């Protein structure tokens, strides 16, 4: 299993540009999440999904959109990028291991908006 994969690893955007961060998992997990992590801070939830076709907002959804057309993929769309969106973005999925819910994180995408 590849686990949770994210592309790209790094990206620099200009203010006002748009982009899509890709996330895929091969563990057949229903739950998937997008978080952002600002320097020296904990993670903040942007959007999450409990299954294909179902998405919901987290703590900081403004400026982002998501879709979940398949179980495997959960892309995050940034429209009209702003410097405040400079951050490291983590995608995660959740499944059960030995009866315990366990989140698995991708390696992250480091985004800079100039």
């Amino acid at each position, binding site marked *: 299993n590849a686990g949770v994969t994210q592309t790209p690893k790094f990206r620099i955007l200009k203010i006002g540009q748009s982009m899509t961060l890709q996330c895929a998992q091969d563990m057949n997990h229903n739950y998937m999440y997008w978080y952002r992590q600002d320097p020296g801070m904990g*993670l903040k939830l942007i959007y999450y999904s409990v299954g294909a076709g179902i998405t919901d907002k987290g*703590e900081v959804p403004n400026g982002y959109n998501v879709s979940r057309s398949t179980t495997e993929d959960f892309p995050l769309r940034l429209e009209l990028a702003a410097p405040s969106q400079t951050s490291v973005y983590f995608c995660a999925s*959740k499944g059960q291991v030995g009866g315990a*819910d*366990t989140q698995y994180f991708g390696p992250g995408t480091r985004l800079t908006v100039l």
Partner: protein
Amino acid sequence: GIQVEQSPPDLILQEGANSTLRCNFSDSVNNLQWFHQNPWGQLINLFYIPSGTKQNGRLSATTVATERYSLLYISSSQTTDSGVYFCAVNDMRFGAGTRLTVKP
């Protein structure tokens, strides 16, 4: 929303020492996880522990749900334990983390 506070914010240890990290939360929770973020940024799940006690090698965790706190114990610390430790509740809220540095 629920608030999550971790202490201490920073911890420096000599190799071989023991440590206790604390996570306080402001409301009842359905799940609580502890994560380790290594110096390269990778996040690894350590424990899923909404209540009770679990152990995994040199690490153990205890959550007292009625008193709204969780503790992560690291015994005989090693330099590879360095990084940031986060607790997260309900998959939604992360604490600000405890940065652990283990010196050889």
